C-alpha cells in the first residue's frame, strides 16, 4: 500500500513541467559554472578528484537546492491548486499516512536529484580532465572546502559529501514542507525557501564585510554558522566532525518528520 502511494506521489510530481524546467535551468547553469571554474594543470595535480570534491561545497549545492525547493513547493500545493485538499482528508487510512508518504517521496526525490548532479559533475569533470583513481589519499587532492581529520581517501570523502548533503537537503526540505502545510501557494513557498537561503548568503557574503568590526557581527556569525548554508557548503565541518554532523542531522530529520506528521492542518481534523 505504502509503495503504491509513494509511486502515486512520484507520478504527481513528475507530470509537473516546473520540475523539468528547473532541472534544465540548473543543468545549464552547472555547465557554465564548470567552464568558469576550469582548473589548469598548474593549479592542481589531481583535477578530476579536486573538482569532484570541491565543486559541490563551492557552488554545486545551489544547483541541488533549487530543484528541491521547487519540488517541495509543488508536492503539497498541487492538491490545493487542483482543489483536492479537502478530498485527501477523506482518505481511509488517515492524513498522517499521506503526509508520511509525501515525506518519503520527497526523500527519494532528494536522493535522485543529488545522484543526478553528482553524476553530471562526474561526467563533466571526466570530459574536462580525464579520470583519477578514487582511492587517492584525500590530503594529496588539497581540497579548499572540506576539512576532515584522520585518514580519508577520495571515494570516502565523496560518500561523506553525499550523505551530509542528502540529510542537510532533506532537513531543509522537511522544514519547508512544514511551512507548506500552512502556506498553500507554491510561489510563496518557493520564495520563502529561496529567500531564507539567500538572506543568509547575503549576510555572509556582503553584510559581514560592512559590519565585520562591530559587536553585532558575532551574532550574525552564529546565524550563518548554524544555517542551512553552512551545512550545504560544508563550513559546518570546521565546527563539528563528520560523525557528529551526520548523527545531528539524522536526529533533526527524525524530529522534523515527527513534527510534520503530528502537526494538524488548519482546515481539517484527523
Amino acid at each position: 500500500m505504502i509503495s503504491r502511494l509513494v509511486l502515486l506521489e512520484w507520478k504527481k510530481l513528475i507530470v509537473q513541467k516546473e520540475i523539468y524546467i528547473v532541472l534544465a535551468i540548473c543543468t545549464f547553469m552547472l555547465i557554465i559554472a564548470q567552464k568558469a571554474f576550469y582548473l589548469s594543470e598548474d593549479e592542481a595535480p589531481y583535477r578530476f578528484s579536486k573538482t569532484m570534491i570541491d565543486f559541490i561545497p563551492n557552488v554545486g549545492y545551489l544547483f541541488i537546492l533549487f530543484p528541491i525547493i521547487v519540488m517541495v513547493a509543488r508536492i503539497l500545493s498541487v492538491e490545493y491548486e487542483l482543489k483536492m485538499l479537502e478530498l485527501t482528508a477523506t482518505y481511509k487510512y488517515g492524513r498522517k499516512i499521506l503526509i508520511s508518504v509525501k515525506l518519503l517521496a520527497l526523500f527519494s526525490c532528494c536522493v535522485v536529484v543529488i545522484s543526478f548532479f553528482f553524476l553530471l559533475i562526474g561526467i563533466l569533470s571526466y570530459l574536462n580532465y580525464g579520470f583519477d583513481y578514487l582511492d587517492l589519499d584525500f590530503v594529496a587532492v588539497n581540497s579548499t572546502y572540506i576539512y576532515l581529520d584522520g585518514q580519508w581517501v577520495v571515494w570516502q570523502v565523496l560518500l561523506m559529501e553525499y550523505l551530509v548533503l542528502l540529510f542537510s537537503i532533506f532537513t531543509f526540505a522537511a522544514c519547508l514542507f512544514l511551512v507548506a502545510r500552512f502556506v498553500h501557494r507554491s510561489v510563496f513557498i518557493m520564495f520563502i525557501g529561496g529567500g531564507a537561503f539567500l538572506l543568509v548568503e547575503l549576510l555572509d557574503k556582503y553584510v559581514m564585510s560592512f559590519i565585520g568590526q562591530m559587536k553585532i557581527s558575532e551574532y550574525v556569525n552564529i546565524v550563518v554558522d548554524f544555517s542551512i548554508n553552512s551545512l550545504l557548503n560544508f563550513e559546518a565541518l570546521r565546527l563539528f566532525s563528520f560523525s557528529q554532523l551526520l548523527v545531528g542531522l539524522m536526529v533533526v530529520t527524525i524530529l522534523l518528520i515527527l513534527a510534520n506528521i503530528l502537526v494538524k492542518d488548519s482546515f481539517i481534523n484527523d
Partner: protein
Amino acid sequence: MGEKEDERLLHVLEKYAHIPINQQHKESVAATLRAFVPVSEQNPKTIFKQLFKQAMMEIWQYQKAILCILFLFLFGLYFIIPDSLDYKLLFLVTTPLPLVLMGWRMLEDYDEEMVELLLTYKFTFQQLLCAKIVAVCSIAFINYTFLAIYLIFSLQEDLLQSIFRLLITGITPILTWGLVLLIFQIYYRKQSVWGVLVLAWVFFALLVMYTPVGEWLLGIHISFYVLFNCILLILLWNLLVRTWKMERIVYD
C-alpha cells in the same frame, strides 16, 4: 452636350418602366457581397500603436509604485557597490528586472474569469498580449538606457570598447526574458513557472556576482553576444507576428 440631347435622353429613360426590386433578392445580394468582399480592418500598425499606448498607460496606472521603487533601488544599489567590476556584473543582472516584476502581474491578470470578458473586446487577446510584451520590454529598455548612461559617466576607465561590449551584453537578458515571457504566456501560463524563473534569475545573479562565472561571461567574445541577440530578436519577432495573426479564441 446641349439641352436638346439631355431632353431626348430623359425622354428615352422615362419610356422604360422601373424594374421592381425584390426585398429578399436585395438581402441575398447583400449577403453574397459581404461574404466575398474583404472586411475593412484598421491597419495592424495603427491597432498596435493604440494597444501599445494602452498597455503603457495601464502599466503606469497599476504599477507605477513598483517601477519607481525599482528605479530608486537600482540607483541606490549602484551607489553602494564600490568596485567597477561589480558595476558591470550588476548591470548584467539588473537590466531585466522590470520584466521580472511585471511578468508576474501579467500572468495574474488574464485568468479564466477574464476569458468571457475578453471575448467582448474588439481586439483579440493575442493582440493585447503582443502589445503588452512589447510595452514591458520597452520599459526594460528604458531602465537599461538610464543605467547605461549612469555607467558611462561613472566608470573611470577609458574603455570605450568595454562599455560597448557591456551595452551589447546587457541587451541579452532583456531579450531572453521577453521571449521566455511570451513563450510561457502562450504555452504554459502558470504562476508557479514564473516563481521558478524568478528564483532561477536570483540564483544566477548570485552566481554571477560572487563567483568567477560573472567574469567568465564578460570574457566571452562580443561577436557571440551580437549573434545571440540577433537570434533572440528574430525569434521574438517571429513569435510576436505569429501570435498577432492568431484567430480569436472560441469560447463555448
